[in-house]
């Protein structure tokens, strides 16, 4: 039986079996190539995996840092639109602001909606408690999480609860999220951006688990493709160039495959908060923000994990009461800027996935060099046009709000 993301031990036996089944289904659906194993086995003893900054890279390269920060925090009457549309690095956040508009607390999550659907389907009581705790409320009305369905009804089955949860708490594609318990207004529970899904992650790794080599244009040596190069030739739609996450995952997995290794997801599968550069935030007196101010949870820490690797999925950052200053009084060391947006915290958060691999040369691979063609630099790629249009929509909406 596979573990729950983060190594969490909250699933009952039926829910754990359902999670196991869901993983198997998704893996079968993406049809992994021969070098990608459906599950790790005795051949895949080694653990590795890339990490990446949580700050969305594509939006920054298209719009510049300041505009990217503002757009990523875009909140409307329907909740966090910037998050739903653009927080695409497998991490999403909400910013809790004081009446004066300054940030008071920032909450981040890497939890998949897919997992929450399983939890909500089998364990409504635990789900409601969890949502309430994230919202800072004693209890929560079940209708806030399950809509019109009574999750405790005698004839209600897990699939009905799961569907009701998804309809109520997760965004329908292309639609704003109405539910305040996952749209950032009262809480953030799990990810909702269209590409931050379990299937997207599994597809990303599976699609990359094949060797791809090129002859370097200058050195004339054979080398594994870079992430950007490989994204052009792997399964269409499996990865997007110019992000932080996709190219680095693709490049690492392609390289492992090129070395003749078998590849499998680590158990538990997930995207994990590997670290926070707490020294990159400084207090008004110039001293570092203490690491303890970053509360990591929803996964095991390095001390609890058998392999010593952290598998946190949630981060809450706030200045403790009595500190004599607020979160908005903190500065980024690297830029000298005060903290005004959630993206500034994302800039100091590192994410990662773990994959298991065999030793190099475990399988024979054909290393036929492939040809190269030109790709536009990230700021000039067509997807930037969509981001610029989104910025214009944001500006127009903000203009309306202030007039």
């Amino acid at each position: 039986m596979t573990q729950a993301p983060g190594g969490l031990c909250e699933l009952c036996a039926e829910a754990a079996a359902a999670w196991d089944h869901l993983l198997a289904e998704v893996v079968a659906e993406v049809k992994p190539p021969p070098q990608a194993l459906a599950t790790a086995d005795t051949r895949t003893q080694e653990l590795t995996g890339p990490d990446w900054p949580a700050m969305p890279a594509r939006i920054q390269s298209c719009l510049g840092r300041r505009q990217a920060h503002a757009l990523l925090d875009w909140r409307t009457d329907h909740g966090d639109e910037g998050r739903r549309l653009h927080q695409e690095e497998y991490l999403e956040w909400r910013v809790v602001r004081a009446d004066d508009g300054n940030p008071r607390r920032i909450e981040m999550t890497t939890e998949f909606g897919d997992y929450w659907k399983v939890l909500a389907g089998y364990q409504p009581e635990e789900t409601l408690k969890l949502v309430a705790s994230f919202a800072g409320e004693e209890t929560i009305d079940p209708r806030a999480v399950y809509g019109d369905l009574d999750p405790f009804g005698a004839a209600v089955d897990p699939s009905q609860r799961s569907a009701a949860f998804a309809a109520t708490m997760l965004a329908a594609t292309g639609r704003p999220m109405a539910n305040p318990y996952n749209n950032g207004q009262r809480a953030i529970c799990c990810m909702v951006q269209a590409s931050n899904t379990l299937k997207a992650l599994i597809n990303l790794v599976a699609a990359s688990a094949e060797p791809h080599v090129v002859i370097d244009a200058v050195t004339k040596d054979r080398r594994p493709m870079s992430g950007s190069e490989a994204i052009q030739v792997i399964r269409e739609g499996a990865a997007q160039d110019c992000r932080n996450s996709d190219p680095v995952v693709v490049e690492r997995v392609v390289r492992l495959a090129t070395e003749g290794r078998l590849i499998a997801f680590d158990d538990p599968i997930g995207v994990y908060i590997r670290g926070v550069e707490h020294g990159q935030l400084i207090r008004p007196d110039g001293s570092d923000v203490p690491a303890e101010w970053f509360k990591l949870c929803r996964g095991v820490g390095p001390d609890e994990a058998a392999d010593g690797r952290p598998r946190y999925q949630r981060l809450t950052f706030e200045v403790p009461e009595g500190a004599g200053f607020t979160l908005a009084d903190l500065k980024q060391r690297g830029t000298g800027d005060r903290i005004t947006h959630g993206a500034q915290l994302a800039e100091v958060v590192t994410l990662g996935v773990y994959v298991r691999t065999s030793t190099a040369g475990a399988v024979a691979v054909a290393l036929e060099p492939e040809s190269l063609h030109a790709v536009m630099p990230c700021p000039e790629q067509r997807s930037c046009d969509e981001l610029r249009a989104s910025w214009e929509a944001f500006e127009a909406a903000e203009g309306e709000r202030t007039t």
Partner: protein
Amino acid sequence: MSAGVHTTAGGAAAAQLQEGIFFRPGEMAPPHFRLLLLDVRPGTSAADAGAALREIGDTLRALQRRGEVRDLQPTRVGESAATVPAEGFSMLLGYGASFFDAARHNPPLTTADRPAYLAPLSAGESALATIPWVEGANESVPGEADLCLQFTGVSASGVARPAVELWKLITDRHLPLGIRGSHDGFQRDDGRSWIDFHDGVSNIESSQRLAALAADPDPGWMASGTYMAFLRLRIDLAAWRMLSREAQETIVGRDKLTGCPLERVGHADGALLPRPFAGCTAGDAQYRDPPQTSDPLVEASHIHRANQNRAQPTTAASQRIFRQGYDFLESIGPEGPRLGLNFVSFQKDLARLQHVLSQTGWLGDVNFGGPTNPGAGEPEPVVLMRLLAGGLYAVPPRGEPFPGAALFTT
């Protein structure tokens, strides 16, 4: 099947970068280095500061192209100017955070946006997460200033002369500039560093360096420019030499003699057994970029921590930077040598360097390399490097009459 390659590797962007960055295929950095730090006198107008820099540019170009120096101009009838060897150096102009500081410069020197990560290195209680200052060092000879000029050349005199010529010019012409300090260094002829290990072995392939260098247009005036980091690091060679060869190799991640990367570090009878990749020989090009490893001790070594993702520079999360460092030997006496490395790197974004130096699992939790929580027999954390001086600089693209000239009118 065909794959993509970013067109930034083309010649147009490369042509825009200032001289003094030796990233092109076949180029080697010349052996001598001098960094001159200049401040603009507070109260100077942008126009006067710009005019002073223009004079500096003219003077340095006359020296560089024709070997002209101020004190060898004809003063008697019928004389011709004497000259010194020309073409002896390359120069690069950088702008520090304080250049943009309106509190320091009133009137301001520019109204252009400061690049986000171009901030004072010395802000906060420590400059870098795990590299402490040498006490009092930054105050005596700082690394930060409004402007920096990097001179690189084939001889020590070739990079010293332009610095002295600048002093003459500033003095004679009463330019509104002050020399804040200077740092020098040299490249070793053995490809090794003071700790006797190979250095720069896994620097970026020349074909990919531009992707690591060329800045995005944010702010716009930095398009096709780059960013320079300068860290003058003192190395505690005595402490290093107390470690066994096995401990040193485990910390660095390479065999000390051959430079071959380690695949594993075994243990036998409480002793470390570093094992390089089988088949690797000294200078083996195949192993310049170390293959993937999953041995936690090897992953914790310096060469992996400095490039944990082992990805190519076009990959944003690779955090690749282009290093062009120069060693230094300040003095040697009864107390032993005072030596170290002028860590000089160029990168498309200073955030990359910040991540490399402050991320856990990269260099954010050790001073140089090795495990943070060593097991029995594994090397204890050692403070090998301390910061003597450091500064971050924006290096705008080439421009006339000098790089960044438009800043003074913006």
